[in-house]
């Protein structure tokens, strides 16, 4: 893939960070400000992306929604990566029964239809933003674990590991101080791609009305509220969807670019 696509991805990701961090300085209206006199008005100089059914400024809600959507993406991927790193490292390093148990657990988790699993958990818990982050994280660590295990299987035979063992470094020291740093590159790639995936999952959940709950704006729930007005107010449905598409694409392009840069074997 050409480098400029990866750069475009990086720019999208950086731009979104900027938007999320400086949200209060970018909007002229408050995201929760209700104006009954100005409902469902189309995009204009006053309201760049129009207003919703309560007269709230869609641009402001989208900018604040970026905070929510990005934080869900990051925390969920952080949880998934942490679980995947630890389980993958234990399975790859120790092998034997530990490997067997962890990898069978991975197989079982891969068999459960993830979306059914997430919805089932949300049915038993309340759909708060923290629960959603945790649930997405806990159901998406399996590919990281497989990746890390494969890295550990080859790295643990290397001389520097033998050297570390020879001078008496403990197993945990070898795993976390010596092997782990060398196994992080592919994990970084999968984490970057994972953020896109997590944002998609959160928005699907919000779309079904079981994600981040209104009035907190997330791109998914702006879209859900807008879909009832799609025939008279297209801007309510089109812009949040585009935001999700562009964001996820930014992370995917960046992730693929990183993969090409880190691993020339995967040259496509």
């Amino acid at each position, binding site marked *: 893939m050409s480098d400029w696509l990866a750069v475009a991805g990086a720019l999208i990701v950086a731009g979104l960070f900027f938007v999320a961090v400086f949200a209060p300085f970018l909007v002229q209206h408050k995201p929760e400000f209700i104006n009954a006199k100005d409902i469902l008005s189309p995009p204009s100089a006053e309201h760049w992306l129009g207003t919703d059914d309560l007269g709230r400024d869609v641009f402001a809600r989208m900018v604040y929604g970026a905070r929510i959507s990005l934080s869900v993406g990051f925390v969920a991927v952080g949880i998934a990566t942490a679980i995947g790193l630890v389980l993958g490292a234990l399975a790859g390093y120790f092998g034997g029964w530990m490997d067997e148990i962890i990898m069978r657990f991975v197989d079982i988790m891969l068999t459960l239809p*993830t979306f059914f699993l997430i919805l089932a958990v949300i049915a038993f818990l*309340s759909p708060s933003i923290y629960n959603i982050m945790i649930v997405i994280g806990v159901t998406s660590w399996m590919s990281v674990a497989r990746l890390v295990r494969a890295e550990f299987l080859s790295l643990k035979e290397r001389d520097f590991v033998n050297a570390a063992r020879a001078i008496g470094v403990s197993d945990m020291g070898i795993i976390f101080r010596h092997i782990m740093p060398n196994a992080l590159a592919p994990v970084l790639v999968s984490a970057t791609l994972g953020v896109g995936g997590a944002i998609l999952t959160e928005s699907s959940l919000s779309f079904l009305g079981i994600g981040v709950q209104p009035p907190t704006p997330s791109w998914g729930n702006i879209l859900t509220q807008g879909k009832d007005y799609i025939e008279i107010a297209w801007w309510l449905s089109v812009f949040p969807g585009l935001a999700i598409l562009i964001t996820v694409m930014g992370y995917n392009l960046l992730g693929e670019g990183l993969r090409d840069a880190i691993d020339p074997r995967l040259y*496509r």
Partner: protein
Amino acid sequence: MRAYIVRRLMMVLPMMIGITLISFAIIHLAPGSPTQAMTDLNPNVSPESIVKLRQMYHLDEPIYIQYWLWLKKVAVLDFGDSFSQDARPVLDKILERLPITLLINILSLAVIFLISIPIGVLSATHQYSYFDRIASLFVFFGFSMPTFWFALLLMILFGVWLDWLPISGVVSMNHANLSPYGKFMDYCTHLLLPVSMSALTSLAGMSRFTRQSMLEVIRQDYVTCARAKGLSERTVIYKHALKNATLPIITLIALSIPGLIGGSVIFETIYSIPGTGQLFYQAVMGRDYPLVMGSLVIMAFLTLFANLLADVSYAMVDPRIHYE
């Protein structure tokens, strides 16, 4: 071969037990369970359903007895009665909705196969051509697309503005009065959008995978050899290379099944299709716990068997592999 299938079958039972263990753990997230007294205040759950939940899953017994009692019921696919108004057995409710979901998923798989393999092969044989670039772009869009949003926009475009396709359900109001051909076309127009939307994400992944797999194969010595002995390019690609390149796709199909089944929840909700996905969504919204648990376990079992089928057929079509 037979030994491999037997061994693979023996793996199924532990996997099923694993699935039930994880599902059982989810029940314990519920309000009213001994470990989560805090969430008793959850306003979404009525006191009656908490009482029913306690009785149904024996939540007052020690945990291993709870699991054992629940497992005995799951073993005969008894998931209890639905908490909803009709209070029918969960299994009946799921089974009557299963055919349409399976139909849509099987059709999606067929669409994925029929479109992604030609795209992948052409991209590989014409690497870096315009076709390849456009296909790569399409793959990126497919990966990043919030399909529920795209599905919604297409529904409005084709269903409302252009008025070419029906927007919901599986059959029209006048379905019973149509000729056999009319009935068939009625199904087709209703299923066109749901099937293509549900295929979209995997389509992207599968085209990419076919391209990669094909690129690897056409660089191998036996392909060069086939060319060297003067076979036409067409024979080399479609007879010699394609067979080996498509084999790994079977495994990938198996891996994409959980995603497809999970996706049914979204598409059946958007297009009002009366399948298990929609049923599950209603169960989640209504906190109909027996139905939620039943659907989760049954869908996981189905995925498990689809995987088994894919593994066994992989072993059967690939003569190079000898399983000891």
